């Protein structure tokens, strides 16, 4: 109980910190939304000309995008501090975390909340609305129930990957560019259905770097698609399981990293 209270205090402080400059915060949300609208706009430009991408129409693509936006929105909310983790290690700030009687990972996660998630959620819901409309998704009770489960699985996958790549900083200290490539640039892969890539890449995005489970595979279920993608339909509902596996492996790597950690002395 006491523990939850402490975490909640950390959470509240981090939100207050973020809301210090209100105008700046609102403009930040606006800027993020402009970026995502631009991305969807480019999809629109392409589909306006080509009508579909490998059997995926605008509605399907927008739905794909909404799953993506939700998963990354919540991942940003929870795991944002991990992006600057190498700086914590280099500056010796991580030492402070270690001497407190709380879980190091818990402290890092609860010390910063990226409130810009608001922007992702607005984009997510808008895309969900238009995706449903354009693709004519029939929302059954089961689908409504499974949607949050899939998003949760996606958060575990994206968050687990983040945790894994930041844990590299325990060994290499600086890893900014690696973090940037693995976390941000790789997102670009799943802006499009992964069956546009060659087989090798499809296997890579399914079994080694499984971000295809964030949107591509579960989207088949919600859109009632049949017959495409690897091993259809065995992987359709794989997201929560893959999420748990990825997160467990990452948490284990992180633990090994903490034990390996030696202060930089700064």
């Amino acid at each position: 109980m006491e523990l939850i209270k402490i975490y909640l205090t950390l959470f509240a402080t981090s939100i207050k910190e973020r809301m210090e400059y209100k105008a700046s915060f609102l403009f930040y949300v606006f800027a993020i939304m402009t970026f995502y609208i631009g991305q969807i706009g480019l999809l629109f430009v392409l589909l306006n000309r080509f009508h579909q991408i490998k059997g995926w129409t605008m509605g399907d693509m927008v739905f794909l995008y909404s799953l993506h936006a939700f998963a990354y929105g919540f991942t940003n909310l929870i795991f944002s501090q991990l992006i600057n983790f190498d700086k914590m290690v280099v500056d010796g700030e991580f030492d402070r975390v270690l001497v407190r009687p709380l879980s190091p990972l818990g402290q890092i996660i609860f010390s910063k909340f990226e409130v810009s998630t608001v922007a992702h959620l607005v984009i997510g819901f808008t895309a969900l609305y238009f995706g449903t409309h354009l693709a004519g998704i029939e929302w059954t009770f089961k689908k409504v129930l499974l949607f949050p489960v899939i998003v949760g699985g996606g958060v575990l996958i994206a968050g687990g990957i983040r945790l894994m790549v930041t844990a590299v900083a325990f060994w290499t200290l600086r890893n900014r560019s690696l973090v940037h490539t693995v976390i941000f640039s790789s997102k670009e892969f799943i802006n499009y259905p992964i069956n546009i890539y060659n087989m090798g890449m499809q296997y890579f995005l399914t079994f080694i770097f499984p971000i295809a489970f964030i949107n591509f595979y579960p989207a088949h279920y919600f859109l009632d698609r049949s017959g495409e993608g690897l091993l259809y339909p065995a992987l359709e509902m794989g997201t929560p399981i893959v999420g748990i596996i990825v997160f467990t492996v990452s948490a284990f790597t992180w633990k090994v990293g903490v034990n390996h950690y030696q202060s930089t002395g700064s």
Partner: protein
Amino acid sequence: MNPKLFFKFVSISFQKQVTYRFDCFIGIVNGFLYVFIFTSLWKALYSQFGTTMHNGFTLTAIITYAVLVMAVRISFTMDDSIIYRKVMDGSIAMELIRPTSFFFMNLAENVGHSLFHIMARTFPIVIMSIFLFDISIPFEPVRFLAFLFSFLAGYILISMLNFAAGLLAFWFVEIFPFMLFKYALFTFFAGGIVPIDFFPEFLKPLVNFLPFQYMLYFPTVILTGRVPLAEVHSIIISQLIWILIMGVICNLMWSAGKKKLVIQGG
């Protein structure tokens, strides 16, 4: 500014980059990842139709465009947070007492940064792509010369855009949202992902009103051979006009900003 001094600054900034070798390797992977995604996307889109020509691009032409526009974009890599950091830590005061123009100092720093990325990232990515993808670049020395002019003009334009955006730090505590907003507009309107030719008619006036297409799209299409040589001079003249406009904006902002600036003793 004295050219000798200018090149001295270029060389210092270049050497700073060389120290991050691991980052550079990741940078190549990162750039190549984008090339891979966009070439896959175009192949998937084109494979759906019997016709091989869309909006004036054959499949080979669009793949060539996708590779080269990314190459140009990577060559334009610069650190757009330099001015912000100088204002925040007060070292901008040093720039004010130096007998050299702050704009040219900043440009020199950018050029050093970019030169490194051209040698370490652009060249390897282009060479790999030539072997991996079906691309064709016309071999005409005059065209290549015209491209170099247009490329330089585009470079100066981006540099000015970043300079003006960085100067906003004189007025605002937090300029990251502005940078993100700039990035969002740039991503959509510069033609870095989808060439302007594919944009629907109703967007054309907006595209033509904004300077972004002169930064990536036009230098690239001059190189790929899409623009007849006879039209090249009018493109370069438009670029020069934009440099003039941006130059006036930068100058006004710089002189207004200097008056506004308060240094808090460091």
